[in-house]
């Protein structure tokens, strides 16, 4: 019945909302004169009750037309409002009683407050005074309201219980039952200007879907500035009528003042933290918003029990008024919606999940969640677009992007590139979805990079309500002596591991909070493993059965059973500890954790922002000993670090661990004594790659350390570039560096005996570094980039090297540094008769050695300017290539005449310049397998000894080297059939010294650089077994002998 009654208004409401959203924002603002402190949704009456704190009234926001009906007045500023489940009773919590005296020196009595109970069905009201301001009100499944007041001040003259949590039973008898006293504080009235209810009462309530759990968030201190990090969280169990309270400290402060609860109360989103409650009453932080600013006055959230999503506005740097659609397990952002204004305080979902109602800075905002599929939304069909060019290729590259509607409604869009971007052209910069936009890349604009240039392509829309993420345009212009195959994997990839036993590759994608699992042999993705929020590092358990993942915004480390690729239950860390890095030894697991709040009590007192926690994997818990390790050989070193930026790693045998900190400190663990045994700080700073090669050689950044953690020799040269990754292969170390984000990467081996690096080899693109991983703020999507990076992994079969690079992944052979011979050019001959006379636009054979590593043939025109990792340049102009092989490149010369210098690039390097001369015209008749391509038109066969020329024989002669034509086709493209490309300076043809009638000379339609001459033999010919047939053009001629008979 209820649903029927709501059907028509919802349809109207949806239409109105859709229209109102046509301003690139989602939701409708219902302005209210005053300041809203709390709301209650009344679905029976189609209204939202909004407590207007400063206007002493409860506003009725009529939902169907978003108008205000007659308000309910209350005697004190209404701080909270709640509606009974049967929609009959409305309870209004009231803050402090005003003194009506004009010149009162105590305009609001601190020890006052109260509530008004409205019986909406009966039209009755009951005003009740209390001895303290009411902060929060909520109804439970039993139909009673839980009322939280500020803890009353002690009255020496009238001492009594300081109870401040009550249960109000509205029916059949209006009774108020005290429950418990909880130390809760708030700010007295009056307050300075520009203060909002969430900064005054600082309390709010949330109710689980089954209404059996009521959560209340309140201030623990008198916090006039509303910036305190300490708050009280009250959990009230409705069936048992018991309450527990916990004081907690958060950095940043616990704002926004909003509480959202799931169906059963096992997961509660409090301010910016998602708390998971265990059956034993314990809890831990499942995830938190990565970039909350902790402000009390802005932001809100609501739990969509229907769709199992969370809608939240948590202000973050760089965000305007944005509603994030997030996952309920790890707060991964799946969508961002533009709000019309900031929300503030309480939000409530409708029972059918069709709408969300929020208190906002100017009143109430109605968000038609159920209408989202019908509201304009726009996006790219993919995250990245990779353009694979190379050092030579100047042919433009094109790819088509799909701009799609993320709903049933098409909408406008605009595309933009960063100011000053060159070399990128869009076929359209605006349009309507669905649309295809062709992106054209001029590789010459990126030739200086030699690596991959990443350019964000921004998508905006006037009509869409969502805020689409930009696409990365990745333009690679590698040279051929740069190794590796690029595999595009979008996202912020922060760690990589290979699983020897299962032949898998694990890549940690931080922006999506997942581990990407690939088959290491085929690179087929086989699984996603959802992590906590902002995962930072992976590690295998000592038995290789589990994968551990640390999260910078979760109090847990994920544990996955690798045999079944299933979640095996998290490791719960101490409150305020965020595990970021793991060191797995044979006998124990350690985690470097970022800590918020106070470190554990120890003697002497420890301090810092990070600790080394000891993990009990079996019981899935971690503890923080006062020393780096406990046990019989307790470490002599105190726990606690002044920096959170550090990393742990272990030797292959898991007998030694290295802990490196960004401040230059290195610490060593010896599993044989199960203790941290050495700590030094000989360097002012560390960062980049890290490894424990053996008990004698450790690496952090560009530094090697010996068994005592003393730096070995000089650091690797800074000219290598920023340190990125290391590995161990074939008895030697591997090291990758990045001279620049868009430059080639460098991989080289490390001799672990003499500690030198060798065989430096260029990679196709740069490996990721801490610098390149750091992007501009991305709001609550979040990122936490360690200065230490692990970007290199060896394939299980030891044949490949996986490197996290700009475009995702680069796969190198383990023989990446095999010596390849440099290309050598020995001659440039025309492709027709292999003579040295060559002409502009003509086809040539480039002969030499080591010109290519294999044989490759181009496909249909236009010809590529690189083929099989080979390219050739004449006077720096790349040549279109027909085919390449170790001894021969077949190519077309550019349209230039005169002195020319040819160089060939391939994976072996660049050849020495080869000088030759290009003629304006230099005719040469094609010979195919020794057969002269002079074709008798009457039999369409080549002229030859058995097919001689007769009197009046019409001939078609295929030649190269006739030079410019009109029109002149672009290099590497087929000649047009119509109009034909006519030779600018026609050739002459003679047979036995007698001129032939030349009827035409053109480029052969559909072919590249091949000309045809149509000529007819004279009526009288000199019979000869071998008569000279001569083609002359541009002062150059070519003569071939043919047989002539008569008749």
């Amino acid at each position, binding site marked *: 019945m209820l649903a029927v009654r709501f059907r028509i208004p919802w349809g109207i409401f949806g239409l109105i909302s859709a229209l109102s959203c046509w301003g690139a924002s989602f939701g409708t603002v219902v302005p209210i004169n005053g300041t809203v402190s709390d709301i209650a949704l009344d679905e029976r009456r189609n209204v939202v009750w909004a407590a207007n704190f400063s206007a002493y009234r409860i506003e009725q926001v009529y939902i169907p037309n978003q108008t205000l009906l007659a308000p309910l007045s209350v005697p004190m500023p209404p701080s909270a409002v709640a509606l009974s489940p049967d929609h009959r009773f409305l309870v209004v919590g009231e803050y402090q009683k005003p003194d009506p005296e004009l010149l009162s020196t105590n305009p609001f009595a601190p020890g006052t407050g109260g509530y008004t109970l409205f019986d909406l069905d009966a039209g009755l009201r009951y005003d009740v005074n209390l001895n303290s301001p009411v902060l929060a009100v909520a109804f439970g499944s039993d139909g009673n309201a839980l009322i939280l007041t500020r803890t009353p001040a002690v009255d020496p003259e009238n001492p009594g219980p300081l109870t401040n949590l009550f249960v109000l039973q509205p029916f059949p008898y209006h009774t108020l039952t005290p429950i418990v006293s909880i130390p809760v504080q708030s700010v007295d009235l009056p307050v300075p200007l520009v203060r909002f209810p969430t900064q005054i009462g600082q309390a709010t309530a949330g109710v689980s879907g089954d209404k059996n759990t009521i959560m209340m968030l309140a201030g623990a201190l008198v916090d006039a500035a509303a910036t305190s990090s300490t708050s009280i969280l009250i959990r009230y169990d409705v069936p048992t009528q018991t309450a527990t309270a916990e004081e907690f400290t958060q950095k940043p402060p616990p704002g926004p003042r909003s509480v959202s609860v799931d169906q059963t109360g096992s997961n509660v989103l409090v301010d910016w933290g998602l708390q998971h409650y265990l059956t034993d009453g314990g809890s831990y932080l499942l995830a938190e918003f990565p970039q909350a600013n902790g402000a009390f006055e802005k932001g809100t959230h609501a739990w969509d029990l229907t769709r199992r999503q969370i809608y939240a506005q948590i202000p973050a740097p760089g965000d305007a008024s944005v509603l994030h659609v997030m996952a309920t397990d790890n707060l991964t952002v799946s969508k961002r919606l533009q709000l019309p204004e900031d929300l503030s305080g309480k939000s409530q979902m409708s029972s059918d999940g069709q709408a969300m109602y929020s208190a906002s800075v100017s009143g109430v905002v109605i968000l038609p969640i159920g209408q989202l599929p019908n509201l304009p939304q726009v996006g790219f069909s993919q995250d990245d677009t990779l353009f694979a060019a190379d050092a030579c290729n100047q042919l433009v590259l094109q790819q088509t992007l799909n701009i799609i509607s993320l709903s049933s409604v098409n909408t406008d869009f605009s595309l933009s590139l960063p100011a000053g971007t060159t070399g990128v052209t869009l076929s359209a910069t605006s349009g309507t979805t669905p649309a295809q936009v062709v992106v054209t890349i001029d590789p010459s604009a990126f030739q200086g990079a030699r690596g991959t240039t990443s350019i964000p392509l921004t998508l905006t829309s006037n009509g869409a309500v969502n805020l689409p993420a930009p696409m990365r345009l990745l333009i690679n212009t590698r040279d051929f002596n740069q190794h590796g195959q690029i595999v595009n994997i979008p996202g912020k990839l922060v760690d990589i591991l290979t699983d020897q036993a299962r032949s898998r590759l694990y890549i940690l994608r931080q922006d999506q909070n997942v581990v990407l699992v690939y088959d290491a042999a085929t690179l087929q993705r086989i699984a996603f493993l959802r992590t906590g929020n902002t995962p930072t590092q992976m590690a295998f358990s000592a038995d290789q059965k589990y994968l551990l993942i640390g999260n910078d915004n979760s109090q847990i480390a994920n544990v996955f059973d690798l045999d079944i690729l299933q979640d095996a239950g998290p490791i719960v860390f101490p409150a305020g500890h965020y595990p970021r890095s793991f060191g797995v030894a044979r006998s124990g697991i350690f985690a470097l954790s970022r800590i918020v709040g106070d470190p554990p009590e120890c003697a002497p007192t420890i301090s810092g922002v990070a600790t080394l926690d000891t993990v009990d994997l079996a019981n899935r818990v971690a503890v923080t000993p006062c020393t780096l390790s406990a046990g019989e050989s307790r470490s002599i070193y105190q726990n606690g670090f002044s920096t959170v930026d550090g990393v742990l790693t272990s030797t292959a045998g898991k007998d030694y661990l290295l802990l490196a900190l960004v401040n230059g400190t290195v610490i060593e663990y010896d599993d044989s004594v199960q203790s941290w045994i050495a700590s030094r700080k000989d360097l002012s700073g560390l960062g980049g790659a890290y490894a424990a090669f053996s008990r004698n050689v450790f690496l952090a950044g560009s530094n090697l350390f010996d068994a005592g953690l003393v730096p070995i020799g000089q650091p690797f040269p800074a000219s290598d570039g920023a340190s990125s990754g290391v590995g161990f292969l074939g008895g030697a170390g591997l090291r990758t560096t990045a001279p620049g984000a868009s430059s080639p990467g460098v991989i080289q081996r490390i001799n672990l005996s003499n500690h030198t690096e060798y065989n430096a080899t260029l990679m196709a693109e740069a490996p990721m570094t801490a610098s390149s991983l750091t992007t501009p703020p991305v709001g609550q999507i979040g990122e936490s980039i360690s200065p230490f990076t692990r970007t290199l992994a060896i394939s299980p079969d030891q044949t490949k090297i996986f490197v996290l690079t700009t475009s995702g992944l680069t796969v190198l052979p383990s023989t990446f540094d095999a010596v390849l011979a440099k290309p050598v050019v020995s001659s440039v001959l025309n492709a027709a008769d292999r003579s040295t006379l060559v002409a502009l636009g003509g086809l040539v054979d480039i002969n030499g050695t080591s010109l290519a590593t294999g044989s490759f043939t181009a496909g249909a025109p236009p010809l590529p300017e690189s083929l099989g990792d080979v390219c050739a340049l004449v006077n720096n102009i790349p040549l279109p290539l027909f085919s390449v092989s170790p001894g021969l490149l077949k190519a077309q010369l550019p349209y230039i005449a005169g002195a020319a210098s040819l160089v060939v690039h391939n994976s072996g390097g660049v050849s020495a310049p080869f000088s030759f001369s290009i003629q304006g015209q230099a005719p040469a008749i094609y010979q195919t397998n020794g057969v002269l391509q002079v074709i008798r038109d009457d039999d369409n*066969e080549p002229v030859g000894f058995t097919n001689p020329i007769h009197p009046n024989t019409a001939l078609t002669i295929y030649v190269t080297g006739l030079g410019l034509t009109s029109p002149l086709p672009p290099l590497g493209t087929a000649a047009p059939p119509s109009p034909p490309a006519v030779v600018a300076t026609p050739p002459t043809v003679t047979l036995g010294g007698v001129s032939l009638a030349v009827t035409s000379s053109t480029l052969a339609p559909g072919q590249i650089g091949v000309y045809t001459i149509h000529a007819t033999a004279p009526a009288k010919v000199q019979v000869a077994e071998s008569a000279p047939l001569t083609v002359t053009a541009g002062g150059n001629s070519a003569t071939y002998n043919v047989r002539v008979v008569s008749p």
Partner: protein
Amino acid sequence: MLKSLTCAAVMFAAAAGLANAQESQWEVGGIGGVGFSPNLTVKNATTSASASVRPGLTVGVYAGQNMYRYWSGEVNYLYRAGDLKLSGNGQSARFAAHTHLITGDFLAHFKPRGAHIRPFISFGGGIEVMEGTGRESFNQPLGNLAALTATREVLPVGEIGAGVKIQLANHLQLRVQARDYVSQAPHEVIAPAPGARLSGIRQDIIGTAAIALTW
């Protein structure tokens, strides 16, 4: 070519002159028969093939005069159909061709003029015009040895033969004969490839029967 024509003309004139010197009995007839040519050989440094004119129908006409008791002279024209053929190394090539034979011949009879049956032997000379008429091809098999060419070639030809004349009626005579026309190898129609050599004497052995009117 010019040399061959001159030689043939001299032989024909000689034959005609002899005929005119005698009181004569004239013969004019039509000839039909079959020609057969032995193979020639074409070879280069590494391989060889046979070149031949395929057996073919031969037709022609002749006119003669019995100038003496035992001697007569006549002029013959024969059209000899016969494709060219190259074969060797498992390959072969055929090429349409024919030959015109124009000769002047002397006949020495073993029976005097007026005998009912007159065996004879003949000899003479003239020209042979060999003409290739097939479709040339760049890919002609055995092209490395010789090219069968669509061209015309004139060669001097000598002839010897034997036969018998049978007087069937007062003015009707049957002749049966076999003649061997001998010429040099045709180097234009069957052009040896560079480096190859066409060797041998071309022979055309033609067996015919003829019906002639005599008076």
